[in-house]
């Protein structure tokens, strides 16, 4: 398709949640379609929202975004416990327990966010 672009991603290098995080930022400019195209292989297709928009720079930008997304995930995982300790210490005097959350699961939507 004219103006579209595709990038193949090795899932052994970039887990799928990393790929989707990196792709999300491109959704202002493109329609983004991830497809499994082989064992351990994902192909991400980019189609411009504006038909006149050339996507020549998108593959390179996306590959850099993958690297940054992976680095962010690594830093987040490495520092997660410290982050939680900081927040817990900051609010230790407040009762933050909301029983509805602890008594439900991810399907019940107790706060009605999806309504």
């Amino acid at each position: 398709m004219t103006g579209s672009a595709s990038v193949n991603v090795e899932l052994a290098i970039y887990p799928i949640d990393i790929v989707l995080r990196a792709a999300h930022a491109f959704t202002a400019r493109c329609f983004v379609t991830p497809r499994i195209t082989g064992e351990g292989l994902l192909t991400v297709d980019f189609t411009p929202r504006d038909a006149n928009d050339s996507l020549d720079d998108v593959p390179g930008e996306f590959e850099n975004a993958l690297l940054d997304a992976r680095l962010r995930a690594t830093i987040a995982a490495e520092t997660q416990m410290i982050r939680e300790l900081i927040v817990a210490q900051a609010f230790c005097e407040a009762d933050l327990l909301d029983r509805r959350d602890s008594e439900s699961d991810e399907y019940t939507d107790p706060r009605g966010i999806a309504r």
Partner: protein
Amino acid sequence: MTYRLLPFRFLRFDDARTLVVNETGEHHFLRNDDFERFVQRELPDDSDLLLDLKAKHFLFDSESLAPFELLAAKYRTKKAFLDGFTSLHIFVVSLRCEHSCHYCQVSRVSSDRTRYDMTEETATRSLDLAFRSPAPRLKIEIQGGEPLLHFDRVRQLIIEGRRRADEARREIEFVVTTNLALLDDEMLAFFHEHGVFLSTSLDGPAALHDANRPRPGNDSHSRMTTNLRRAREVLGHDRVAALMTTTRLSLQSPREIVDEYVRLGFTSMFLRPLSPYGFALRSAGTTGYAMRDFLNFYVAALDEIIDRNANGTFLIESYAQLLLTRIFTPFATGYVDLQSPAGAGIGAVVYNYDGDVYASDESRMLAEMGDTRFRLGNVHRDTYESIFGGDTLRTIVAASVAESIPGCADCAFLPWCGADPVHNYATTGDLLPHVPTSDFHEKNFFIIKHLLSLYERDADTRRIFWSWIRNEAPQAEAVA
């Protein structure tokens, strides 16, 4: 010596530099190669950069240990807007207004329809709720429509509010938001007696202001400037502040608008885009524009304001002041849209003329347009507990924690930014934003990055920005 990382986010700021921002909002610019060495734990023990990053809490080592308590104290300070709960209580005493501004967020009705006035009982019950708030300092903002069209209710709220505050030994402050056109000597004397602040509107020079803000006689600017002078004489110069709203007409006149604020002696101005509510939405075809157009206007107007300051005129751009305070100080600011979670309902609340309670003025706008999703309850039918502890407000708060919003969670600007679920809902139908296409994100990301670029540019701009943060005219010597 090896070091460990503390939580932070990063942004490829430009081709050469990466910006790192930690959980409490401290930041540092690194050359890209230094950033790679930093995250790969390859910075030498004696490097200045390692010491800088250690001092700003981006890393710790066996000598410094993890400064949890200090970081927690800083984090708590940044989130101090949560302490005390709702402090700003907005009373819509009437929807009537004698202006017919194209962009009006209030969706005014004509000035002779008294059914849109707040009753004495509704005002009393609303005050009952306001004084249930645990906030140590209450701010009562009285608006409309045009509140001076229903001055009896203004008087009641201020007298009764003051009496209750005195009895409870609580601090209280009153602000009346008015176009000033109907201000008379009796009102001024009353405001003076009770230490009331006035907040008014000024869109620019007469031709622009009157085009944006039509009223019978087409004399909005003339009345505003005349009564501004009288109000300053009676109340004091700094007791009257002004806001401007940017219409399509405004976009071509950043210099003229700044000139008008300087000419009238204001020391601050707030460059605001149109909001997607009320008449602003209905007249979007004639007054509206893309966010990119507003941002171009913002940059031009901000340049003008910085130039005026460089030439000795102290003039603050209020949105920049808010953001700079968040970026360069440890303190929280009280602006509801620059908080996570947002301040709707938990920082500010609106009591409508009919007793309905809304999480924000924007929530009330939506209700006027037929969508009551963000109505928290009614002062005549509901309790404080059901209004402020109910599912509607809990849903708004849960949807406005930027730390959990896709696109915001990884953003380096998160500690300085916020969320606006009501705006998201009004523009997309979803409480959560689609960040890549969100105009809220576009505005804040662009302005924060622009302010950082300006701050890095030269010492004069840094000196001016610090004078805005301190809210005082700049000192003679430059701040490095």
